[in-house]
């Protein structure tokens, strides 16, 4: 019976509910804009990771390594592009 029970998925489900509650707290609690944005961003990325790994079965097929490689490649390019553009256009811009 224990083998049949999808413990991982149930835990994942509870965890993602928890993440949602934390994200929702931003609306109800009084906090500064930057703290709120940080909470939202962090919970959003963890949430995406939980969905991808647990519920979209990223790590369960033969293509496991290529799925993770492309995901990391994509994420690193996205981060580079976004933060690089912010650096070029706002933070590091002199005029």
């Amino acid at each position, binding site marked *: 019976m224990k083998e049949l029970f999808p413990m991982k998925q149930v835990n994942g489900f509870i965890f993602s509910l928890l993440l949602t509650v934390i994200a929702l707290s931003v609306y109800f609690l009084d906090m500064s804009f930057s703290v709120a944005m940080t909470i939202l961003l962090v919970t959003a990325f963890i949430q995406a990771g939980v969905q991808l790994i647990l519920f979209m079965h990223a790590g369960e097929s033969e293509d496991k390594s*290529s799925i993770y490689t492309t995901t990391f*490649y*994509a994420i*690193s*390019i996205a981060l*580079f*592009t976004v933060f*690089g*553009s912010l*650096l*070029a*256009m706002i*933070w*590091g*811009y*002199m*005029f």
Partner: protein
Amino acid sequence: MEFFERFAIYHPSPLIYASMVAIGLVSIAIVVGITYFKKWGYLWNEWLTTVDHKKIGIMYIISALLMLFRGGADAIMMRLQTAVPDNSFLDAQHYNEVFTTHGVVMIMFMAMPFIIGLMNFIVPLQIGARDVAFPRLNAISFWLFFFGAMLFNVSFVIGGSPDAGWTNYYPLASNEFSPSVGVNYYNWALQISGIGTLMTGINFIATILKMRAPGMKLMKMPMFTWASLLTNVIIVFAFPVLTIALLMGTFDRQFGTNFFTSMNGGMDMMWANLFWIWGHPEVYILILPAFGIYSEIISTFSERNLYGYKSMVWSMVLISLFSFTVWLHHFFTMGQNAFTNSIFSITTIAIAIPTGIKIFNWLLTMWKGKIRFTVPMLYSIAFIPLFTIGGATGVMLGIASADYQYHNTMFLVAHFHNVIIPGVVFAVLAGFTYWWPKMFGFMLNEKIGKWAFWFLTIGFCLAFFPMYVTGLDGQARRMYTYSEATGFGPLNMLSFFGAGLMAIAFALIVYNVYYSFRHSPRNVGDDPWNARSLEWATHNPVPEYNFAVTPEVKSSQAFWDQKKHGHKLFDKEYEEIHMPNKSGVPFIMGVLFSIFGFSFIFAIWIGVILSAIGIFACMIHRTFEQVHGFHISVKEIKETEEKFGGADK
């Protein structure tokens, strides 16, 4: 009448009217010729509707060669205009249009399709597949590229050419400063062919990851296939940025939005930022397959296996990642602070390291090898020192503080031609000569090929090295003329002379195709170069089904193993082969897309709506279409194989 006024040429000149007449006459001649020789059926059945990766590859290469001559004519016009001081052959506006067209045509419609054409032909053969993963999609890719290119090419006779540079920076490209429809042409031609390229990227990643012959692990793929895989990964990540940036530009110009304006919260420099987020990876999209081609050729003609296979693969992986981290070096002088510039300066210089590793790999492959100086090998050997010079000047430009001196001068122009011509153009010409017997079953004449090589190499040096000097002396790029007092005259004349030699070289290459078609012996066998990788294990020219039997592979040099180490590639009986059906829909979709683009450029909304309905109708048709492909029977395979003198099994 008012309706037709919009099609009038924005900046007419006798040259443009002459080309208008020439285009008209050539089109009529082609139609009459095809009708006279009764070739319409052949054209439609064998080429326009084909989904065969080999034929699509050949069509890509033919289009690329045509575009090479289009872009080359632009180059000669520019060199002629600047050959002497105060020249009045072209005026400022016309010169702007010519350098813009030259840049776009050479990058998007010459270099890219040439590379993709070779990829189309060679990659499925190198991995032992019968076709790409999605043959129909491949045909759509080609026709979107082709009609995108045609759309771009009619711009100068209908409505006016784009004139804001191939980089198309805003606010220069906005309606205010570029009032003609030229930039609309730029937006839509690149959009349409860019979508085609994106599909190619997805198609080839799927092909290389999923359709390799049994035994071919990732680290046992030939180097050109590795290079193609990484190139297509870059395509998939870089091209969406261009798609969106072009769309934003279109909205700005045609619907009055404010993405790239300097008021109402718009940010004109955002275009430069987005353009180069795509544009720098684009540079590596061109050069990585070139590296792959050189690797194949150098190893074949040195009769040695590639030195440091793993380090070559890893350096290409690093390049493909780094290529996304350096784009800001294209606008060091746009107003960032020193800290920001330093970051991108360091990443830029860092990318020279994996590139340098590859240079040593090629040198060490040739070390103690039995070098044969064939035409492809000559191009590859000339590439190494010339590309290194281009790389070194690239590092110079990559130093942000020094870039304030070099930027926007002819020094920059010399640098990027120095990497693109010996890097990409030499590579595609080498690959073209090397794989020619694979495509057509006979060799290109070596003697004419060597003449062309020397004309091209010497012409290249004479055309571009003087620009380093005039650039350092302060000659700005994109200036249509200069005064005699600047002293730029003699060196620019030398450049023009060099460009003339290059033109002769390209004419010789075309003559070589004609000469070899007439005179070359047809019995060259299946292995005219004593080659190493899997694509040479089948016949020349390649039969429709590529390999009669799926090969079983043990290393990246499967064919060499078969010849020298007694490894059996084909150890199975003939089986029925399942092939994809041909289809006219991709061609029709290409036509519809070009009508869509053309109507959008001139804001003829009825044409936009009708062609969009047509495009969706094609997609719906495809969704509900029942095609199961066709089978080639064992008897037919046997007959074909016997015609080639029997399979070596």
